[in-house]
């Protein structure tokens, strides 16, 4: 399974050590790749993480259950809401609280909007990694419109702190639905443009087809999930296989590919953005506008969650995101483990796939795996 890299004699002059990162090696956050190259071919890769290590799991062990909900968003910067939802879900399950239906709809919308925002940022990254910075300008702009929506919904653009155990922190603002539809329409038009100039671009196609192939038999040993896995032909999606929130109430398709190379992974994600827009439109149509959006909590200042343990997962843009919570009946968590998909994608898988790649494609390869270091280091 694990194949140690062949020993490389640097003094031979044949090889060069090259550091990619840790300064944002292509919209992936701070991590670095220690590449050993021969000519412009990578012969060995070692990943280094820890540049964003803030010890969240440890910090959470000395914060109360309500306090924790404000820090989990930082575990995946571009997708804070998945952390908020999953943290709320594990705490709710262990304390026997069920969020009201209205909150579940709002959460569904929130998560899908975040998925779209995060994909837009990633899409820009793909463009940039393959020399198409214009796309980055466009997608980040539209992501900003999404952040505007988050700002008016949650009070913050990035660290929303909106999904609280028991429900959500506030109703949707007046006229929010209309503005949301407008943003979705805009993104839809943008995606068509991007398809024309990126996916139908000969340069992009040439560079990405066949780059970084994930074969079917790599999926299980490397713990590959999400679009990276679906692009290899597995129709596996947590939203479909273990439905949560309102996902079994709305219609959408699980997008799959055949040969998970960089192009196909990008294409799957592009299609998933369209599916996300489809889901959100249905949510906007069906979301109740009245009723409670929060189930009363015990007094949060001395909230004790009964002893127990659980694991809940959700499908984020990068794959399976999960929270494993162990409680001991006190006001503090005994252990919380955050399972981010990047953990497997960015380290073991990246180290394998980098070998044999051209140096110029390393950034694109990394982006195509769509990883965020903060969720590795937690």
């Amino acid at each position, binding site marked *: 399974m694990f194949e140690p890299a062949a020993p490389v004699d640097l003094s031979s002059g044949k090889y060069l050590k090259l550091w990619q990162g840790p300064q944002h090696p292509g919209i992936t956050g701070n991590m670095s790749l220690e590449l050993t190259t021969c000519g412009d071919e990578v012969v060995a890769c070692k990943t280094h993480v820890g540049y964003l290590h803030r010890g969240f799991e440890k910090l959470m062990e000395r914060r109360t259950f*309500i*306090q924790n909900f404000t820090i989990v968003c930082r575990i995946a910067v571009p997708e804070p809401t998945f952390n908020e939802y999953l943290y709320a879900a594990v705490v709710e399950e262990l304390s026997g609280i069920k969020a009201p239906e209205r909150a579940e709809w709002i959460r569904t919308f929130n998560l899908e909007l975040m998925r779209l925002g995060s994909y837009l940022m990633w899409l820009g990254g793909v463009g940039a990694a393959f020399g198409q910075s214009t796309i980055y300008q466009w997608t980040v*702009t539209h992501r900003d419109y999404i952040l505007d929506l988050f700002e008016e919904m*949650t*009070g*913050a653009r990035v660290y929303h702190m909106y999904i609280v155990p028991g429900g959500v922190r*506030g109703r949707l603002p007046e006229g929010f639905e209309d503005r949301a539809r407008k943003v979705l329409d805009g993104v839809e038009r943008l995606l068509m443009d991007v398809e024309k100039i990126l996916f139908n671009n000969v340069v992009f196609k040439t560079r990405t087809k066949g780059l970084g192939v994930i074969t079917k038999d790599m999926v299980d040993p490397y713990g590959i999930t999400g679009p990276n896995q679906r692009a290899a032909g597995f129709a596996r999606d947590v939203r479909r296989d273990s439905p949560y929130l309102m996902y079994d109430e709305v219609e959408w398709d699980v997008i799959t590919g055949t040969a998970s190379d960089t192009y196909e992974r990008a294409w799957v994600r592009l299609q998933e953005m369209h599916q996300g827009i489809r889901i959100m439109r249905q949510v906007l149509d069906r979301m109740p506008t009245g009723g409670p959006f*929060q189930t009363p909590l015990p007094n*949060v*200042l001395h909230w004790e969650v009964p002893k127990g343990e659980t694991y809940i997962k959700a499908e984020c843009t990068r794959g399976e995101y999960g929270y494993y919570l162990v409680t001991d009946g006190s006001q503090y968590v005994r252990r919380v483990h955050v399972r981010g998909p990047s953990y497997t994608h960015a380290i073991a898988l990246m180290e394998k796939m980098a070998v044999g790649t051209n140096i110029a494609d390393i950034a694109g390869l990394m982006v195509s795996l769509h990883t965020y270091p903060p969720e590795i280091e937690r």
Partner: protein
Amino acid sequence: MSLKDLISPFYVWQRAFQKPYTQKRPIEERPGAPRYRGFHINLTEECVGCGSCEAICQNHAIDMVKVEGLEPRNGDSGLRPKFDYGRCCWCALCVDICTARSLRLSNHYAWVTEDPDAFHFIAGTDAMPWNQNSLGYRRDDDYHLLTHDRIEMDALSPEESLKGFDEVMKGYTEEQALLEADRCVECGICVATCPAHMSVPDYIKAVRNKDWEGGLKLLYETNPFSTTCGRICTHRCETDCVLGLQGTPIAIRWLKRAIADRVPAERYAEILNDTFTENGKKVAIVGAGPGGMSAAYYLRKQGYGVTVFEAQAHGGGMLRYGVPSYRLPENQLDKDIDYIRSLGVDVRFNTRVGQDVPFSELMDNHDAIFIATGLSSPMKLRIDGEEHPRVVSGLKILDDVAKGQDPGVGKRVAVIGGGNVAMDAARVSRRVGADVTVLYRRRIEDMPADPEEIHESKAEGCHLVPQAIPVKIKDADDPNQVVIVWGEAEMVSDAKGGRPRPVLQEDRMHEETYDTIVSAIGQGGDYDFMGECLGSIEQKWGKFIPGAYQQTGVSKIFVGGDIANSTADAISAVEDGHHAARGIHRFLSEEGLQ
């Protein structure tokens, strides 16, 4: 490679003609969203300094600090939150938990300054450019981190309660007590308001932990009448409970009862473990009410030989003879008193000082004396016809009932007054089958009686007539009846800013016939037994004005209870007794009092 793939990218050019997205800062301002979580604003006037914001802050970004010109007072600690923006993450949990709802965030989000200390500021007090911002994050009305509604206590229905003298309020079940105790934010602001300064947050915490024994110990640190006060306390603490700012205050009184009710009397000695060595000094106490017995308890705990002189056959004073058993069953009162007596406090019942034993004997044979005789002389109505035989005092009726006698009020009763004695006299009369009308000079909200008493007496069918001023009492045709003349009153606001004054409207007079008129407008004290000592003790409006530690001008005489405080309730008497015990100990151990 297809031709399409070569041409398609050139589509990008069409975007060159579109309007740019970028905003031209600083020419164009970009305000935060209406709900934006920007910089803090605190409405200093509404904030009560409970410190819940500090307690919930996950980053330790908040300190509660003294603010110049803001002194602590009942219901307001005088402290205000100071924010350290080096730590704050603008999660706004402090806003969500704010009990006064005074804390909020503005939608102001940009702040540049060269002075790093500027980022450490008292919100609302320090002048900040965003203090007047009307937008920003507020807690949604339908989103709560605290339970604002009290857990209701089960009670007898009015129909059931009218049938007899069974206790009306049933007490919290364990589940109810835990839920109610859970609401507490542990700020401790109530502690200052409580006359006895009981450790409220601590004993509420004991309830949460189902630690009834630990709770009882906490109660006895400041109040040996916990079973009693858990039922009939005037609960001033609840007036200042911060949970009351947006909902109903914590039922502090009921939680006290929840503890005391769960510990059987037999276990008190073992749990409280009040051990002491005799110090050989003797203290006499006049009156076995809450004041006297409280002093007895705390003195005894310090080894004093304590003798209590009580004119009545049982202890408890006004608690026994002035509070009907449907509010305070006698066995519950006995539970408190018996424990104090079990420590070796000698209570001489049926012994009226000045009559059965001379005051001089107390003075000669004891190192100190504590007087807490209470107010037992009903005040006069001061209207014509008051001496009519069908006019009786409220206290007399309550006394009769407490002693198991029929008060003989007949079928139609008018009660004059708006205090607890008036309410109790009315409710007792209802229980013996009378129609009851309560006449009160001012408005219902001005009534000094507990709101619960007012509510329950209404529920039990007492007819409350506010703004009714008695003018005259005269004979009825039937010698067993009596006629009262009363007039309606208008409330006139007081020019000096005092409370509104009722003014009789001579053109709206009423005349009604009743079997009994109950006068219950207050009580006075009787101090004749003290003889010549009286001259050295300061008095005002019929009450003593004690100095520090309840000491009087006669250095070995200490006074307390209704005769020496303006509140005239059980909890104040308890604290007077406790405080006098502190004073007597200082006096006798030469720790400062002369």
